[in-house]
């Protein structure tokens, strides 16, 4: 993974060949385009328009994968909208929904019994918080959390937004606020702060932008790999 100009690791969006290709219904090269849904006709049906939920987004984003949208509606009304954007996607839109988040989604929530093929590889590369309603399907990373009740899941999502570690907390919209008031644009640091004290079952190299964001600050925390669990967390 190569840091890009923004200091982040290689963004999901640069890999459209992976995300979208495996998704039935996204129309091959037309990943992210919407067909024949809703009350519309014309342009959206013809695949000319992109569904708003699949439009590129640089703010902190939460992708919800479900068959009927009820989970997304609940989370959208529960979570502070200036803190996170909820993208309501169907299983066949999973790849397009993930790639629309720049550099990657802050969180993935779902209730599907089977994971769309495009999701697993993305979650294996990037620190995305994963919350699941019901039993976690095969293919989710070890750091994902599953819940039997919606209220518990919504509480966990809310707590992840409000997390604070050593004076570092999520900023409004995107990025993290450092104790000295500066804003750091690091999606991997956002993920680590939200997951704290837990972490991610990912290689340490996935957290390069977090290391850079914290270096030179008064914060003594750094991404560290637990020698036993091999998970990376702030410590």
């Amino acid at each position, binding site marked *: 993974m190569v840091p890009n100009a923004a200091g982040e690791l290689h963004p999901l969006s640069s890999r459209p060949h992976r995300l979208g290709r495996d998704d039935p219904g996204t129309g091959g090269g037309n990943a992210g385009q919407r067909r024949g*849904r809703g009350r519309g006709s014309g342009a959206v049906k013809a695949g000319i328009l*992109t569904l708003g939920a699949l439009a590129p987004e640089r703010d902190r984003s939460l992708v919800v994968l479900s068959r009927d*949208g009820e989970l997304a509606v609940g989370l959208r009304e529960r979570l502070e909208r200036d803190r996170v954007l909820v993208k309501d996607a169907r299983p066949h839109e999973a790849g397009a929904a993930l790639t629309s988040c720049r550099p990657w989604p802050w969180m993935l929530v779902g209730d599907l019994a089977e994971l769309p093929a495009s999701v697993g590889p993305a979650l294996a590369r990037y620190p995305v918080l994963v919350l699941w309603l019901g039993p976690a399907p095969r293919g989710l990373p070890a750091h994902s959390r599953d819940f039997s009740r919606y209220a518990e899941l919504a509480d966990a999502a809310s707590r992840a937004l409000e997390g604070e570690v050593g004076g570092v907390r999520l900023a409004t919209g995107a990025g993290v606020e450092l104790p000295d008031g500066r804003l750091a644009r690091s999606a991997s640091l956002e993920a680590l702060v939200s997951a704290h004290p837990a972490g991610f079952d990912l290689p340490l190299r996935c957290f390069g932008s977090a290391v850079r964001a914290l270096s030179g600050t008064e914060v003594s925390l750094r991404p560290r790999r637990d020698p036993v669990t091999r998970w990376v967390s702030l410590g």
Partner: protein
Amino acid sequence: MLLLEDDAEKLDELRRHFAAQGFHPLAFRSANRAIGALRDRGPATQPLMAIVDWDLRLAPEQSSSSSDALCVLARDASDCLVIVYSANADSFRVRSEINRAHPRAWLHDKREGDASLMQRVDRMLNHPVADLRVEDGNFVVHVPSQDQCHHREAVRLVVRHPEIVTFHSDSATRAARRFGEWLARHDSAATVVSHGNRRYRLAVSGMTPAARSDFPRP
């Protein structure tokens, strides 16, 4: 301001209401006309706000729907504040369709009446942020000094507070920075924060996430 309402009488009422407040309403009865106007205007001149009727059954043209218009707003005018009003606002299916078409759209229950909608829009446009307020939808006033800042980017930052706003041109970005300097000169409690990539938001000093609940969006 963009208005999309299939009922000609109601559209005219909305247009007159917002024109009287100093806005320049772009009023349409059909979604495809609204979409055409959005695309003709380009990102640099996107509307500050859009009010969209979810049910456009009376529209003279039916080739596009309200959902189509919302998709275009979400993608091509992402910083436009959008209110969708629907008589089925309680239905999670309708909410889901609206969220999918435009994840940032605000939902208003049509059954509460037109006056309720207009009052809500007025509150959204006029809500004060720290020592600032927007007047006539056209300029920002620093209340203690009564000085005015007439950049539309300044208005957009105040109206969208505390959300991030993306500016689509160098001149708009410069205007946002100048607004930040203007705030500093006036010793305002509000500051302009850069998120990079032409993305800015207005922050209020001492306003923690917990404190934000004192300032709910209308």
